[in-house]
C-alpha cells in the first residue's frame, strides 16, 4: 500500500486533499488560537490569525469558573464502570451467540439485531419515569446500569461477528482438557479477541463521554456535572466571553484527542472492523 506512494504521486489529488485536510483541521486551530487571546483581541474584526500576546493565564482563569478537574472526575465516574459493564456483558452475549447452540438462539439473536436499530431517544420518557418510581432518578445510577445490561445490541453483534472468524480448534482443545465455557471464554479466547474488545472500548468511551441528554435528565447537582454538561452550561452563561469558552472547550476535548493519539491504530482498526465486518 505504501510502496506505491513512492512512484508517480498523483499531484492534483494531493493538492486537493491537502486543502481539505487544512479545512478539516481548521476548527481545532481556531479553537486553540482563540483560547489564548484577550477578550478585546478576540472580538476584533477582521480577526487576526494568531494572538499577538499569548495569554496563558486564560486557562487558570477559566478553571476558576469552569472546574474541569471535577467534571473530568465525574465523567470518569460514569464512563469507567460503563466501560467495564459493556465489555463484560457484551462479551458474554457475543460468545453465547457465536459458540453455543441452544433453544431460542435464533429468536434472541433477532431481538439483538432489532435492538440495534432501536432508536434510544424514543424511550427516554418511560425510562426516566421508571427510575423516578425507584427513587433513583437523581444521580449516576441510571447512566451506569444500562451498560451492565448487555451493553447494546451493536457491541454484541460486533463481538459475535469477530468471534465467528476465530477457528474453534482452541475451543475444542480446551474443552477436551476439561474447561468449562467460562474458562474457554476468559482464558483461551480473550487474548484473541482483543481487537474487537478495544473497538468496543473505544466506541463505548465515545458514547458515554459525549452524552449530554442523559446527564441533563439525571444529574441535578452542579458538583456532579459531566464535562459535556459543564461545557454546555458554560456556553449558555458566558454568552460573550469567548476566550473562556474556547479555553473550556479545549480542555473538554483534550482527553478524547489524547486518547485518540495514544490508541490511534486501535481506533482505526476498530472502526474498520465495525464498518466492514458487518
Amino acid at each position, binding site marked *: 500500500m*505504501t510502496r506505491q506512494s513512492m512512484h508517480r*504521486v498523483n499531484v492534483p*489529488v*494531493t493538492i*486537493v*486533499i491537502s486543502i*481539505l*485536510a487544512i479545512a*478539516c483541521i481548521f*476548527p*481545532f486551530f*481556531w*479553537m486553540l488560537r482563540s483560547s489564548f487571546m484577550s477578550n478585546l483581541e478576540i472580538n476584533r*474584526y*477582521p*480577526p487576526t490569525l494568531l494572538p499577538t500576546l499569548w495569554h496563558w493565564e486564560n486557562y487558570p482563569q477559566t478553571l476558576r469558573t469552569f472546574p474541569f478537574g471535577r467534571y473530568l472526575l465525574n465523567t470518569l465516574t460514569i464512563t469507567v464502570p460503563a466501560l467495564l459493564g459493556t465489555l463484560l*456483558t457484551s462479551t458474554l*452475549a457475543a460468545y453465547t451467540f457465536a459458540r453455543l*447452540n*441452544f433453544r431460542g438462539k435464533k429468536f*434472541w439473536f433477532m*431481538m*439483538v439485531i432489532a435492538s440495534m*436499530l432501536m*432508536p434510544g*431517544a*424514543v*424511550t*427516554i*420518557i*418511560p*425510562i426516566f*419515569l*421508571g427510575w*423516578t418510581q425507584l427513587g433513583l432518578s437523581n444521580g449516576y445510577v441510571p447512566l451506569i446500569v444500562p451498560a*451492565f*445490561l*448487555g*451493553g*447494546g445490541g451493536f457491541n454484541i453483534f460486533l463481538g459475535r461477528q469477530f468471534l465467528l472468524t476465530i477457528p474453534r480448534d482452541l475451543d475444542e482443545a480446551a474443552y477436551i482438557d476439561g474447561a468449562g*465455557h*467460562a474458562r474457554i471464554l476468559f482464558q483461551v479466547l480473550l487474548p484473541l479477541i482483543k481487537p474487537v474488545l478495544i473497538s468496543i472500548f473505544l466506541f463505548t468511551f*465515545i458514547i458515554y*463521554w459525549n452524552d*449530554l*441528554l442523559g446527564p441533563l*435528565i439525571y444529574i441535578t447537582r452542579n458538583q456532579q456535572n459531566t*464535562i*459535556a454538561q459543564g*461545557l*454546555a452550561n458554560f456556553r449558555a452563561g458566558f454568552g460573550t466571553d469567548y476566550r473562556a469558552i*474556547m479555553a473550556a472547550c479545549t480542555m473538554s476535548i483534550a482527553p*478524547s*484527542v489524547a486518547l*485518540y493519539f495514544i490508541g490511534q491504530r486501535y481506533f*482505526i482498526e476498530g472502526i*474498520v472492523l*465495525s*464498518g*466492514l465486518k458487518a
Partner: protein
Amino acid sequence: MKSSRSRRTTLVAYLFLTPAILGLVFITVLPLLGVVGISLTHWSGLVPPTYIGLDNYRDIFTVDPYFARSVVATLYFAVGAVIMGTLYAFFVALMLNQRIPGRGFFRSVFFLPYVVPSVGASVVWGWMYEANFGVFNYFLSLFGFDKVQWLGNDITATPSIIALTVWGLGNFIVIFLAGLQSVPTSYLEAVEIDGGRAWHKFRHVTLPLMSPIIFFNVLMSLVTNLQIFIPARTLTKGGPNNSTLYMVLLIFREGFERNNFGHAAAVSLIFFLFIGALTGLIFATSRKWLFFEGA
C-alpha cells in the same frame, strides 16, 4: 450424554445472556410498552397520571403547532446529513485511495473530528458561525459577500448544523477507505483488460462491491442522525423560528420542560414508528441496488 450436554449448554447460554436479556426487556421492550401506556395519559410528573385515551394523538395532529414542523426539520436534517456525509466521506476516501504521500497522516487528520465530543464541536463551530466576529463571515467578506446569520436565520440554521455533523464523520471516511482498499485488484484489472477506464471500474466493480458497506453505514447513520439533539440544544435551542426543533429536542422539551409527559410519549411513539417506517423503506428498496458478492 448429548442431551445433558446440550441442556448444560443451554443453561450456560442463558446464564451468559442474562444481562443482555435483562437489557432487552428493561431498556427496549418494557419502555416501548411504557411509551404506549404513558401516551394515553395526561401526566405532568407532579400529579399522578390520568387516562385520556387518544387525546394526545388528536392534539398532535390537530392543535400542536410544533409537531409538523419538527418532523419536517428532522427529516431535512437527517437526509441532508446522511447524503452530504456519505458523499463527503466517499469523496475523501476515493482521494485517499490514490497515490498520495502520507496517506496515513491524512487519514488521521480526517478521522480526528470523530473523537471530538459533540458538545465541544458544537461550541467551536458556534463560535466560527458567530455573525459579527466569527471567522466564516470573515472569509465571506474577503470575497465581498455580506455577513450571514448562520445560526440566526431559519434557512441557514439546519445546513450549518449539517456541516458540523459532516465534519465529524471521520469514521465513515475510514470505513470507506478500508472498503475501497479491499476491492480485489483482479476485478479492476479485468475491467482494464476489457478496455474500461476509471469510471467503468468505479461503476461496475467498486460501487457494487462497496454497496453492502455503504448500505449498512447509511442506515446506521440515518437512524443516528434522526435522533440529533446536542447541536440543537447547545446552539440554537430549536430556533430560529423552530427550524432546528428536531424531534428529540421536542420530546425533551415537552417532557422535561413543559412537564407534559403524556404528550411527549405520544410524540415519541410516532417518532418510533416513523423511524421504523423509514428503515423498512430502505430495506425494501435495498434489493434494487445492493449487490452481494456470491449471494
